């Protein structure tokens, strides 16, 4: 699934989209501790989090995350939105919870999320 298709499927609010028609989303990850996300988030994932701090963009770069989604209506810190645009990291928002988004996404991705 492309980022463009993901945004449409989940009704995400785009903050910065980077190459959405060609970037592929292969799996999903939920996590709010960036130390955990850095250790475990698979590349190509859509990552659901409440963590709006600017460091989440660096984590997305390091892990080659396809799309960062700030859930529960959390808005990004100003530095976070700016860094996403500057570094070419796709960042979206949603009023829905990580669980609700994952349930909607279930069965649509090429790979299952890791156990």
């Amino acid at each position: 699934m492309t980022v463009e298709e993901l945004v449409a499927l989940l009704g995400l609010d785009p903050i910065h989209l980077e190459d959405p028609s060609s970037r592929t989303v292969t799996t999903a990850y939920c996590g709010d501790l960036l130390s955990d996300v850095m250790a475990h988030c698979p590349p190509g994932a859509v990552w659901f989090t409440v963590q709006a701090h600017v460091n989440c963009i660096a984590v997305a770069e390091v892990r080659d995350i396809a799309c960062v989604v700030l859930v529960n209506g959390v808005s990004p810190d100003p530095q976070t939105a700016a860094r996403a645009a500057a570094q070419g990291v796709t960042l979206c928002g949603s009023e829905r919870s990580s669980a609700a988004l994952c349930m909607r996404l279930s069965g649509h991705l090429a790979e299952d999320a890791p156990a």
Partner: protein
Amino acid sequence: MTRFDLHLHSALSACAEDCLSPRRLVERASRAGLSLLALTDHNASGNVPPAIEAGRQVGVEVVPGLELTTREEVHVLVLFDALEPLVDWQAVVDAALPALENRPAVFGHQVLYDAADEIIGVDDRLRQVGVSLGLEAITEAVHARGGAVIPAHVLRPRHSLVSQLGFIDPSASYDALELGRRDWQERGCRLGERLEGFPVLTGSDAHCLEDVGATWLEIDAAVHTIGGLLAAVRRMAA
């Protein structure tokens, strides 16, 4: 010479001993030879004024402060040169805390003392919780009030800059970084060293009377404020 500890809790922190009054704290610190300490209760500062008063009587300078839990659940020490900006900052913290009551059976009591060592009340607000402000916004707001921001026990696996935010950004504008006692000892750290460009400190993080005065740092200068102390530490780390 100044012997100091910038991270101490009193009975106002729910997780600290209820008998850890500001007076007992400064008296024990004084006996251990400390001349400067910061009282840093969790999201609270109601025991700072009596600590300042009791400290004056035993020759211990008390830095007004608190240990804030940010929206990211990072613990940071917020310290000021005077009481007034702390009182102002406490109002910001109170407005950013969820409107929930403390549950002493779960979290512990939050006890307020006076300088004469009498219990004068209990704080009913839940304070063992994150505020709605992010770390970067907090750093900016505290600096605008002339205060200092020192992320606490930065390498710990819980409630630290590293556990919550993955890594330490060298371009951030923290005034220093605190390492927990164990990390400080294991790394053989010394005052004057830097981590990711920031001067490093350690503190006792005392939650019981026994731990007050057990951990301290010394600097070869007579300092009386957090501003003066951090300037001296920066000179050492230059």
